[in-house]
């Protein structure tokens, strides 16, 4: 009990980074993730590691690119508009097959938007974001404990697949405080024979993302996608809550999923057969699991703090076999338990029907 601590999500990310033995952090301030660079600016130098407040988000992600290329554990964090600025660098890092970690404490968009929580960066994060055919492996914390645990996990995935990993959080996860266990983490740092670290090697280590020869570049694309296929077979994570006998399954991630858990508890008390599928990995996406549930006769209600983004992946996963309804709030308005429950009651009685793009109505 005594090693439980009350910590802010953003601070837990920092302890997670220290537990993951991060070598270097490069960042630029933006609300609501400012505690991440603030705390790491103390913790990293104390541990003899590197902290740099860059001159911009573009500079920060390119510093991550450089540090990762030399085989160091490098990360950055930002919030939505800042993450947009990092997209070019992320595309290069993915193409060069370098491991790196990005934390996005999402705020409400689009544009400069607002500083309150949002989930409008789903498409940007899981579909690529920058130019070209690549994906970020994306994991979504829903508690301060996850904020701590997911950083070492993110680096493990990043090194295993030699691909950038995004921890997709939001302003609520970043700003709230919860009791967490700062348990020891068994850190597995992989060998990096590919690192351009100046050491003499049998094969010259070259980090490059320019391939002018079409067949060679197509091979790079195929290599990336072969990795994503392996990740899909091995890394998908989700939690089912009261799904077994549910007629309607809420699908959500992060803060929305936490709120949906309360919706399920309250709905069950009122006799509604509802459950929750909380997604932990957003890329790779658990399409087979969602198809299995739809074949078992369940309808879905996707709940996001967006105008409807993840719902498209849920819609594709059911292959027209069941209804996928949608409920969302934006602008920094946080979903409420009662409004979701009201909407769930409505769609239980009157689902949108298979093959209906509910979020466009």
């Amino acid at each position, binding site marked *: 009990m005594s090693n439980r601590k*009350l910590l802010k999500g953003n601070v837990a990310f920092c302890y997670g980074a220290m537990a993951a033995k991060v070598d270097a952090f490069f960042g630029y301030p933006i609300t609501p993730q400012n505690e991440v660079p603030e705390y790491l600016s103390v913790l990293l130098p104390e541990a003899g590691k590197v902290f740099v407040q860059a001159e911009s988000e573009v500079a920060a992600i390119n510093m991550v690119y450089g540090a990762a290329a030399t085989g160091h554990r490098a990360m950055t964090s930002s919030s939505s508009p800042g993450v947009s600025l990092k997209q070019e660098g992320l595309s290069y890092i993915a193409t060069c097959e370098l491991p790196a970690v990005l934390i996005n404490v999402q705020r409400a968009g689009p544009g400069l938007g607002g500083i309150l929580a949002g989930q409008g960066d789903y498409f940007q994060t899981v579909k690529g974001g920058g130019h070209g055919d690549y994906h970020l492996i994306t994991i979504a914390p829903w508690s301060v404990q996850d904020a701590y645990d997911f950083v070492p996990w993110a680096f493990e995935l990043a090194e295993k697949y030699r691909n950038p990993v995004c921890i997709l959080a939001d302003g609520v996860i970043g700003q709230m405080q919860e009791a967490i266990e700062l348990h020891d983490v068994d850190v597995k740092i992989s060998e990096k024979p590919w690192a351009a670290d100046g050491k003499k090697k049998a094969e010259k280590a070259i980090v490059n993302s320019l391939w002018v020869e079409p067949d060679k570049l197509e091979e790079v694309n195929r290599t990336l996608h072969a990795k994503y296929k392996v990740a899909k077979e091995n890394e998908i994570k989700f939690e089912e809550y009261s799904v077994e006998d549910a007629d309607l399954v809420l699908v959500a991630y992060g803060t929305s999923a936490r709120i949906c858990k309360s919706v399920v508890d309250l709905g069950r008390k009122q006799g509604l057969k509802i459950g929750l599928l909380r997604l932990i990995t957003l890329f790779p996406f658990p399409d087979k699991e969602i198809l299995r549930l739809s074949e078992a006769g369940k309808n879905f209600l996707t709940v996001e703090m967006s105008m409807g983004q993840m719902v498209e992946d849920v819609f594709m996963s059911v292959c027209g076999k069941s209804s996928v309804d949608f409920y969302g709030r934006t602008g920094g308005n946080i979903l409420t338990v009662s409004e979701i429950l009201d909407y769930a009651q409505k769609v239980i009685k009157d689902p949108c029907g298979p093959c209906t793009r509910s979020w466009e109505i």
Partner: protein
Amino acid sequence: MYTEAVFVGMGGQGALLAAQILAHAAVHEGKNVVWYPAYGPETRGGTATCTLIISDEQIGAPIAPNPEILVAFNQTMLDKYIDQVKPGGMVITNSDLCEPITREDLTEYRVPASSIALELGNPKVLNMAMAGALAMVAKSVESESVNWALENQLPEKIKKTIPINMQALELGKERVQKTE
């Protein structure tokens, strides 16, 4: 045990810190806790709002737009938030700065928090009198745990105020009164 409260006050009244001390106390008791501040463009002298949830179970929604309990430090914030309290819920007010409430479905508790603080010789400890009132009414944390939190979680530079904070806590518990 499940307590869901929203603390509202003006910046500088210590509403956020009071809720945070209770949160630390609950963590010390092995309970689950969420403390979530309204992090808008807040300024000194502006408004201060936070959510505190304490539970024996895993906590779902980390926000409480319609809280069961409102802890109001002054009239302005009481007026601003009272309509959001869950029907049949509870309001704890600083009786030195708040008029009696008019919503009839709510249970009202009043505590002279500002007077308690002045009596103890430090106007800043009104927040712990409010915290004491909540601890008394909601029975979510024991005094011993709050005292532990004060001893272990206050910043070093204000450690000398621990005894007076503890007194404010106890007086808040003693003097909180249900409006009949």
